[in-house]
């Protein structure tokens, strides 16, 4: 192991200041909690001379409920997402995902923006954000744009942001009160574990009929994915175990996992089937209780 390379750390107070630093300083990179970035710097996977610490910028922190929309500041701690009343009530699938991340120490440091920008295929918040149809608010000194969170992920540990861009917030439409959701994660132990596979689903019902379904699987392809072909199989149906099984099988065909020290591709494939089925069953059972 090599010692951590030296770098300068800057503490801007505003987003504009941060953006200026990002575009002007040599080899600049944002740092939030640093829980992903510091190991990457140490292992020389990422190089940076100037780290722009965005974790103290007030505009980037906090969870707000707007008109039919929930906004999470990019530098909001995972712990704050996990403990948020708004998230717990409106998007429990994200609350469950957040509480599955690392350990209390990691959740106290790590941020939701970092989890997404780090672009790990196994990022635990990603499947939940994907089924919530979340989008990312990205700005640079030249302007701003909004892209689906899914599109922030470009490949393993590669995001689609330009070096001078900053993720400002993550927003998603407030789910209907009748939506039901589920998050499941499989790892090599119970706590402090990187997912072998993680899955989120969101179901909407019109009476007994499933009128919308969203399924997302992580750690089973080069980025977290939505599996539309499986979702379609649930639309406008009265759900049965057979239909759920059929959709889950569809997911198993759609994923494209790799072999690594954490699991074989085959195990990941089989487990995406199991976890999708479990998520769908759980969400459906919650819905049946509401009906």
């Amino acid at each position, binding site marked *: *192991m090599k010692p951590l390379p030296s770098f300068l750390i800057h503490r801007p107070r505003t987003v504009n200041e941060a953006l200026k630093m990002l575009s002007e300083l040599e080899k600049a990179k944002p740092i939030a909690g640093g829980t992903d970035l510091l190991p990457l710097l140490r292992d020389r996977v990422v190089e940076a001379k100037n780290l722009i610490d965005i974790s103290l910028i007030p505009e980037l922190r906090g969870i707000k409920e707007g008109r039919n929309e929930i906004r999470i500041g990019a530098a909001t701690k995972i712990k704050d997402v996990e403990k948020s009343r708004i998230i717990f009530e409106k998007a429990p699938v994200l609350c469950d995902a957040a509480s599955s991340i690392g350990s209390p120490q990691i959740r106290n440091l790590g941020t939701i923006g970092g989890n997404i920008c780090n672009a790990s295929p196994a990022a635990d918040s990603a499947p939940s954000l994907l089924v919530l149809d979340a989008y990312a608010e990205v700005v640079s000194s030249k302007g701003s744009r909004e892209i689906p969170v899914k599109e922030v992920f470009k490949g393993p540990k590669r995001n689609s942001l330009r070096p001078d861009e900053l993720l400002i917030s993550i927003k998603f439409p407030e789910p209907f009160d009748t939506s039901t959701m589920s998050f499941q994660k499989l790892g090599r132990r119970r706590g402090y574990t*990187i997912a072998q596979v993680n899955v989120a689903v969101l179901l909407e019902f019109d009476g007994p009929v499933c009128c919308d379904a969203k399924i997302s699987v992580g750690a089973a392809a080069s980025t977290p994915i939505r599996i539309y072909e499986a979702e379609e199989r649930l639309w406008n149906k009265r759900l049965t175990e057979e239909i759920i099984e059929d959709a889950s099988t569809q997911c198993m065909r759609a994923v494209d996992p790799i072999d690594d020290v954490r699991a074989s591709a085959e195990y990941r494939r089989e487990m995406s089937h199991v976890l999708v089925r479990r998520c769908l069953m759980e969400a459906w059972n919650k819905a049946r209780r509401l009906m």
Partner: protein
Amino acid sequence: MEYANILQDLLKRDEYLIVGKKVARTDALDKVLGRALFTADYVPKGTMVVKVVRSLQPHALIRKIDYKEALKIPGVIRVITASDIPGENQIGYALPDQPFLNDAKVHYVGDPLALVCASDEYSASEAVDAIKVEYNALPSHLTVDSALASDAIPIHDGGNIAVKTRIRKGDVAKGFKESTVEVEETYETPYQEHMYLETEAAYAIPEGSDKVTVIGTMQSPFLVREKVAKILGWSLSQVRIIQALTGGAFGKKDDMGPLVCAEAALAAVLVGKPAARIYDRDESVAYTPKRFPARFRYRSGADSEGKLKAIEVEITLECGAYANRSPFWLWRQTAHAAGPYYVPNAAIDGKAVYTNKVYGGSFRGFGDLAMQFAAESQMDRLAEKINIDPIEFRLKNILKTGLTTTCDQLLDHSVGIEECLRRVAEASNWSKYVPCKEGSRVRGLGVGCAYHGISTSRGTPDWSACSLILNQDGTFTYRTGICELGQGSPIGHAKIVSEIVGAPLDFIHVELPDTSSTPDAKPTHGSRGLMLGGTAAADAALKLRDNMLKVAAEMLECREDEVELKGGEAFERGTPSNKISFSELAEELYARGISPASYGFYASPKRYFDPETGLGVNYSVYTFAASVAEVEVDLETGETTVLKVWPAMDVGKAIDPLMIEGQIEGAVSQGIGFALMENLILEDGVVLNPFFKDYIIPSALDTPEIAKPILVEKPYKHSAFGAKGVGEPAIISIVPAIVNAIHNATGIRFNTLPITAERLYDAIRRSRQ
């Protein structure tokens, strides 16, 4: 000396003051508050940094080590290679096969070649990269079978078998003839990494031109002194070793203490400046000793009554690049091959084989963990074949007073395994248990038994020493070479002293082991720290007590046998108001010229051993343990959850039940790791997962409910209060209990560990096809 009785008579107490009680450790608060000092805490900022240049090849001849460029890097002070070593370039433990720095050949990826001394981490690390090593690659042996092939290239002179062992007891052919059922299986166990929180560390300070002091992590300060002196070519008295509080050891620091301290000391002495050597995590995981991998071919036979008749066991131990502790490890496996059962006929053959991989070394359970996983799996299989309950079958064969071990050692007392087994069966409601299924989850119950000879094997003499001083203010200074590694043995010694001299525990200050002032207690390994070290402590305390009683009686004007020592005071038992404090008593001892200090010494009873048959008295005493585990297996994912463990141990005498519970709880977790998840992944001899991130050990959330440990107390008559060691025996029965429970739940039996979710999932799928 039969301590158990003597102490009771002598102390004349209906109930002990502190022995046997749960007491808060005197070192706990500082550790919890982060105030306790560990080796790295002693290193001043700016101290010279030492790093090791390591081989990138598994097996090769060294043509050249070129460090010219490295010396040009600013901050680099010196590069040390084999030719700079003033003493002997040899650090092998059992065999002289391990150069301290290699100059002729490398034996595994990670073999040390040179030391870099630099003013800081950055230049040191740059220098390590700048050193060019030219090799002539040799074919490498990455499995024992490859190393044993007839055309294998020898990794060390003398071939690839480092050592062999054997036991011949009774007549095995006859035993199998008398058997009506037979089971033969092959088991394999993997490496396990210790993953202690504190990596290896040493800080060496040269004094003048011919002395050095080293503060470091270790388990055996006097072994460290011997090895450091040897490498420096110095006498023992020129080297002073201090063991700092050590953040976990589990055996590996017994192997690594000498290495890390010698690395720091050599650099400090050659450069003439203090030197710090602290291992990185990946270095510790990838290149330092692990639990030895092993393979067991195991054949057992029993008759129709359920009596074990014969075992035939072939042990192939993988040493890795160096023999290190393998002769002792292998011997222990050979001696304990049957498990804690009586078997009249046994043929056991072991060999330890070199390969070009990271080498094995000491680890809690020392061979017995793997061996008894195999033995206990055999017991379950035999029971199944005979169609009797696994516990009933074990009870028919269990070791009892009057029976002999595999080595034909007669057990004449302190054999509590039957009680352990009966009581865990009762506590877990074993006989009423029905394996159940709910959705995709199935549950099952399994049992494991274990025994572990305490301290060193065979005829090796075993002893321990310590010193105790009564200070003028009535407090005591206690010195022992037994190390504090988190386990608390020295606190156990202090409790023994406290009981005997009647001082409150916080009157007794335990000094850090320091070879310049501490008596040699021999190593803190083999679960001997409390049993051997604590008995020496009792000896010292009894001697000092005599002097204290003599003076106290005169001061109190009563008979010696009327004096009670308690709570830091001496008083007349019949008239407690007639009393003096220990400070008054101490002053008087000093004033009268009666020694206020004592030296404690204890030697184990002599043992004998016949290397030809492997028979004899191999261990002075055994600790026994039994556990029942309940697991839940998710048939869809293959995940195993250990729901509950019911542990029992025959500890001789619990000096502190709380510390024993601590040992058991840690052992449950470490046992779960070995059974279910720990998995060192190597490719071409390179460790692929050298960090906590991917070398998975159990987290707090993986720790099951642990029933209140059942402590059976069958005192050992030659140790203080009858105590036996507990650190290692605690883990051995956990692994087979879990493996047997998985079988009970799923019908699937694993001969290879770890049983990861993925492997279990594959097995479930195969069993359905």
